[in-house]
């Protein structure tokens, strides 16, 4: 018997909502949506952000989170000491943006990057599952309003594990205005519906011209289009800088979606 499986629900019991930001294709902006969604929500709520994209973790890059372990590398510079998970009856994810007078919640962040550093992680399905179970079993999130999960592309191990272990998870599916992407989005939605998980809706990202085909296609599945994020050519210049990210057009579009659906 694997004792870790039994403790996962307990680790997540004080989290009000779990949102898995998913989508079949790579490069459609899942990590950007997940990270900036977490950032925008943290203005009002207590938020956790879990990066489960083991092959290409990038939430830490988008939010500018330092990921060194100062305790082990000897880098004791102030401001960097608390950005590594602490051991206390499990693992406490570091609070990367602690609550301030302007920010009510803060963001607790957990990622494989703390352990893998910037090394490539070449692992197979069974190992991915084991690593996900380990992270879910040992991370103590405590009380959160939202746990946002940055999912890897596809409907493989990570998606199946989230469906298996996080029954309360709501899937937020990311699409772009592309017929190529749509084919995979449809498959993702079909799989999620067949497994009976909750689908919060679809966000159409990188929208650069008027078109209705994404909306019409997902309507056939009885799934809501939560909103559109316009193609923001300036967002690349905001990567790694939370203040710039918050004032980007990308964030403004996400805030509108939050007002309506979160």
């Amino acid at each position: 018997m694997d004792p870790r499986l039994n403790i996962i629900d307990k680790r997540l019991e004080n989290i009000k909502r779990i949102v898995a930001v998913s989508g079949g294709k790579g490069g459609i902006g899942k990590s950007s949506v997940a990270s900036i969604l977490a950032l925008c929500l943290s203005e009002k709520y207590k938020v956790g952000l879990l990066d489960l994209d083991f092959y290409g973790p990038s939430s830490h890059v988008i939010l500018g989170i330092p990921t060194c372990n100062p305790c082990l590398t000897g880098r004791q510079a102030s401001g960097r000491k608390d950005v590594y998970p602490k051991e206390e009856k499990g693992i406490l994810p570091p609070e990367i943006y602690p609550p301030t007078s302007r920010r009510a919640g803060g963001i607790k962040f957990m990622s494989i990057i703390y352990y893998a550093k910037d090394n490539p992680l070449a692992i197979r399905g069974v190992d991915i599952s084991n690593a996900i179970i380990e992270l879910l079993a040992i991370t103590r999130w405590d009380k959160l309003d939202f746990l946002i999960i940055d999912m890897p592309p596809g409907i493989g191990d990570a998606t199946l594990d989230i469906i298996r272990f996080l029954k309360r998870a709501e899937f937020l599916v990311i699409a772009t205005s592309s017929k190529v992407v749509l084919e995979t989005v449809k498959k993702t939605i079909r799989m999620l519906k067949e497994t009976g998980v909750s689908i919060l809706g679809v966000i159409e990202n990188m929208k650069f011209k008027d078109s209705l085909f994404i909306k019409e296609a997902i309507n056939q599945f009885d799934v809501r289009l939560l909103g559109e994020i316009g193609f923001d050519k300036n967002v690349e210049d905001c990567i790694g800088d939370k203040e710039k990210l918050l004032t980007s057009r990308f964030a403004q579009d996400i805030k509108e979606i939050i007002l309506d659906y979160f």
Partner: protein
Amino acid sequence: MHEWALAEAVVSTALEESKKEGLKEITKIKLKIGELQQIDIDTFKFVLNEVIQPQNPMIKKAKIELETERGILKCRVCEHKWAFKEMLKKLDEEESESIHFIPEMSHIYMRCPKCKSPDFEIVQGRGVWIDSIEGEK
């Protein structure tokens, strides 16, 4: 204390299983502790025996048997088998700490000693495993 989280998971599972089996009291739990996880056995035992067990009447008197399981790895490319212990001494503190938290990190910090591939299987000795739970009905 990562050991605390794993000890908590063992007790939580044992209590759940005893409910399913209709046990009134758990008398023995047999555990296998895989070498890759590099559990501090004294800390693990202390948390189980001195902190968690006394709080749970169902498990208070249970005998906890721990058996260390050798870490064995097998290369999927050249089929070479080797022991985790052989390689542990070559890892620095940060690398072995990462494997302690998530044993799959071994695929980053270790390579097949024969062909240098990262594509190997953890055949045994990955982490904490409950072998059996005994009790009285």
